[in-house]
């Protein structure tokens, strides 16, 4: 026992002597390790810093070689510098001492600091280090706080987080921590993953909308640049906001401004400002969609569903072409109309079908009349998805679930049809608050044929349970997300976190003799540990997200995109009287000059003209509408 204690003291004494002897290196290593601890850096960052200092060492050695012209002197340079440092320090020349040893001590110190920091992390991670039994847990929590603070500082720096990076990556924010992924300062995902299916899960108020806006803007900016370079097709972003209400309108406005900054020329807000045409669907698809819009049961109700489908088929496929509007379709759901339409000969089968279904036609017309009244006129316009760069579709999923489900179904069918027929766009379909429409929108069915349609699907929900109606469908959606899964704070992250898989982790046991003395006896074993820690995800702050991809997880501090209110463009330049060269020159000059910079001579204005910059039209308005009374 006494011998063991003596050996421990001796070991500490030797280590202390080494630290003192190599004081410059020790000092740099201590500073480097301290910074890494404070900033939550990985050891690799210190190694990289050491590598960056190597040119300084090379220049110093080269200068020594040139000055001494002796290989032995070059080899002995670090030792001589070390001696000179102590001499200068003894003489009180601290600055000189630091300057002499810096080229050798800084890279060496950073490398030693990196090794020491890596040893510290490893020993705590495996449970073999630390003074107390809970040191590892406390260390990890502290490091998380430091890493999150550093990430927040990085995204706060102006210009530090661009929207996209060279090579087409979409930047999301700053990396807090990476497990199984390379650790980088800036979190970005390649554009190809934006062209794959993604899932976003996060509770209300955790920054989900901020993340989605960032992803949409990144997709738009990258796709537009690729299209301009001839590397891809023009993008089309279609957002189905299945929550609805005033909040959806605010987000739509924000999305429009953000997308405008990203390069989108037009964002259509459906159904508030824009309408689509359901009747543009091909007849076969139109029949399927119209039948699916109506909710019909199974069992005995299946008979009614068949009759409904037969009548709709008769109305859509009537001679003379499919219906062009809701009114046209409703008018056709009348036995008299259908009989007349099919009376031209050669339609005996259809007429027979009509005779069988004639009694139910009135009920079917009633159901469709009610449905279309509730759906509004958003699907009865003449617009198409090709008319805008982005569509923000607001579905009132909170207030009217049935209507939202029908609208979602119709919009997705329209989009699929657009993708098949026109096929010239790279489409991202984002379904926000998917739970509101998941009952009747089989999005996984779209997943399976989306690749051929050049259509990527991004589904977001507030929780795992909100992702789909049943567990099979949830797993189907989540496991098809080959573009990655974004997980924000949610009370039950386990099912999604488990999709990141497990990795081998060392678990060490040791015997506590008495705090802080540990016995050297113990054992280590490898055990699979979850890559994405559910506890960590449960405690994520607002704006923090975990990105799960290929068995790794990157924790990200999302950078919020801020877009100013729609800027009013500057008015056109005032035009002097035409017909003279001077007038033409003045017009050119006026067009080039900013409004505020124009001189009074350029702008014909009256003595009490209140608004400089535009020609005064008071005279004309006075002539037409009478003079304004004096204020």
């Amino acid at each position, binding site marked *: 026992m006494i011998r063991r204690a003596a050996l421990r003291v001796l070991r500490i004494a030797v280590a202390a002597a080494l630290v003192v002897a190599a004081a410059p290196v020790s000092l740099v290593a201590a500073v480097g390790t301290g910074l890494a601890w404070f900033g939550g850096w990985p050891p690799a960052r210190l190694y990289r810093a050491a590598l960056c200092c190597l040119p300084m060492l090379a220049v110093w050695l080269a200068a020594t070689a040139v000055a001494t012209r002796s290989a032995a002197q070059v080899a002995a340079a670090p030792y001589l510098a070390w001696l000179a440092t102590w001499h200068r320090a003894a003489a009180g020349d601290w600055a000189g001492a630091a300057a002499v040893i810096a080229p050798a001590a800084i890279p060496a110190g950073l490398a030693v600091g990196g090794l020491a920091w890596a040893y510290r992390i490893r020993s705590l991670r495996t449970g073999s280090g630390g003074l107390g039994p809970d040191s590892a847990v406390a260390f990890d929590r502290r490091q998380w706080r430091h890493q999150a603070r550093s990430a927040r500082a990085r995204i706060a720096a102006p210009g530090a987080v661009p929207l996209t990076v060279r090579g087409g990556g979409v930047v999301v924010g700053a990396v807090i921590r990476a497990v199984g992924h390379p650790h980088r300062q800036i979190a970005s995902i390649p554009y190809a993953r934006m062209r794959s299916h993604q899932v976003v899960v996060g509770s209300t108020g955790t920054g989900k909308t901020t993340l989605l806006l960032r992803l949409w803007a990144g997709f738009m900016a990258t796709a537009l640049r690729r299209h301009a370079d001839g590397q891809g097709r023009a993008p089309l972003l279609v957002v189905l906001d299945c929550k609805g209400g005033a909040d959806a309108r605010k987000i739509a406005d924000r999305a429009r401004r953000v997308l405008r900054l990203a390069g989108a*020329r*037009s964002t259509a807000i459906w159904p508030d400002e824009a309408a*689509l045409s359901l009747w543009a669907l091909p007849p076969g698809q139109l029949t399927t969609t119209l039948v699916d819009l109506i909710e019909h049961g199974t069992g005995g109700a299946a008979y009614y569903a068949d009759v409904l489908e037969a009548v709709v088929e008769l109305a859509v496929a009537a001679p003379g072409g499919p219906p062009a509007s809701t009114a046209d379709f409703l008018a056709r759901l009348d036995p008299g109309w259908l009989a007349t339409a099919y009376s031209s000969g050669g339609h005996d089968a259809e007429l027979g079908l009509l005779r069988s279904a004639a009694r139910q036609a009135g009920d079917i017309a009633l159901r469709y009349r009610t449905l279309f009244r509730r759906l509004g006129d958003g699907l009865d*316009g003449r617009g198409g998805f090709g008319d805008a*760069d982005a569509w923000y579709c607001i579905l009132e999923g909170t207030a009217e679930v049935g209507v939202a489900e029908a609208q979602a179904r119709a919009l997705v069918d329209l989009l699929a049809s657009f993708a098949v027929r026109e096929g010239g766009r790279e489409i991202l379909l984002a379904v926000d608050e998917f739970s509101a429409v998941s009952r009747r929108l089989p999005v996984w069915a779209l997943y399976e044929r989306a690749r051929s349609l050049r259509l990527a699907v991004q589904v977001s929900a507030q929780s795992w349970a909100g992702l789909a109606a049943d567990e099979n469908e949830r797993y189907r959606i989540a496991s098809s997300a080959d573009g990655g899964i974004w997980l924000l704070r949610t009370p039950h992250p386990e099912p999604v976190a488990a999709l990141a898989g497990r990795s081998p982790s060392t678990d060490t046991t040791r015997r506590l003799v008495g705090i802080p003395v540990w016995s050297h006896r113990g054992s280590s074993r490898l055990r699979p540990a979850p890559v994405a820690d559910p506890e960590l995800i449960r405690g994520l702050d607002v704006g923090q997200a975990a990105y799960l991809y290929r068995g790794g997880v990157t924790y990200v501090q999302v950078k919020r995109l801020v877009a100013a209110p729609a800027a009013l463009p500057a008015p056109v330049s*005032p035009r002097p009287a035409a017909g003279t060269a001077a007038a033409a020159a003045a017009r050119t000059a006026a067009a080039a000059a900013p409004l505020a910079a124009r001189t009074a001579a350029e702008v014909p204005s009256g003595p009490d003209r209140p608004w400089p*910059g535009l020609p005064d*039209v008071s005279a*004309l308005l006075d*002539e037409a509408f009478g003079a304004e009374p004096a204020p």
Partner: protein
Amino acid sequence: MLFAAEMYGVQLDHLAAVLGVGEARARAIAAKWRARGHAETARLGPGAPWTWLTRAGLTACGLPYAAAPPALGRLAHIRAVVAVRLALESAPSYAAGGGYWRSERRLRTRLGGRIGLREHIPDGEVHWPDDAPVPWAGECWAIEAELTPKTAGRTTAIMRELLTRTGDYGAPAAEARAPGPPRHVRVIYLCTPAARPTVARARKALGEAGTRIEIRHLPPGAAMPAPVKATR
């Protein structure tokens, strides 16, 4: 007939002003149009009878509008816009500048049912030729007649929409708000005394951009005559 077609319909006193004749002569002319099947006349509301074009009249004018009598709910508004157009066209500077009135009906027809259906359409546009001998040559103005006060927020939103629009009505949606000079250099608001304070507040809320908005009172003759109360 073109005037009546562009404005949805006109009342007899305005028709007389357009034709530059007395009301009796205007009534006779309207009756002639009606006899030919080009127009319909009826007393739709208080004041003089209205005249509007039938399908045959619109076809004769070469206009692709849907034939319908002026909507009863919009009679007062239509009358006010007609009065504004007449007042403007009677100004010597308007004639000198060669101004051209593009009616709401024309704009709405250009828009059709495409996306942007719910965007605000002004009550008219005035286009000035590039080579007009007036300082505002080449400009396009939006004209708005305000009879009843909306909320200031809604009015501000309409003003902002008009001032930021860059593309023509009926153009692809992508061009409606594309980078470039605004379509409407200025917006002229003609208001009733009741609506004017709200419009002024909305203009003030726009800040510097509000300098492109002119507010005037509606001209005389814009108001619909009050309905005559039945006497026992």
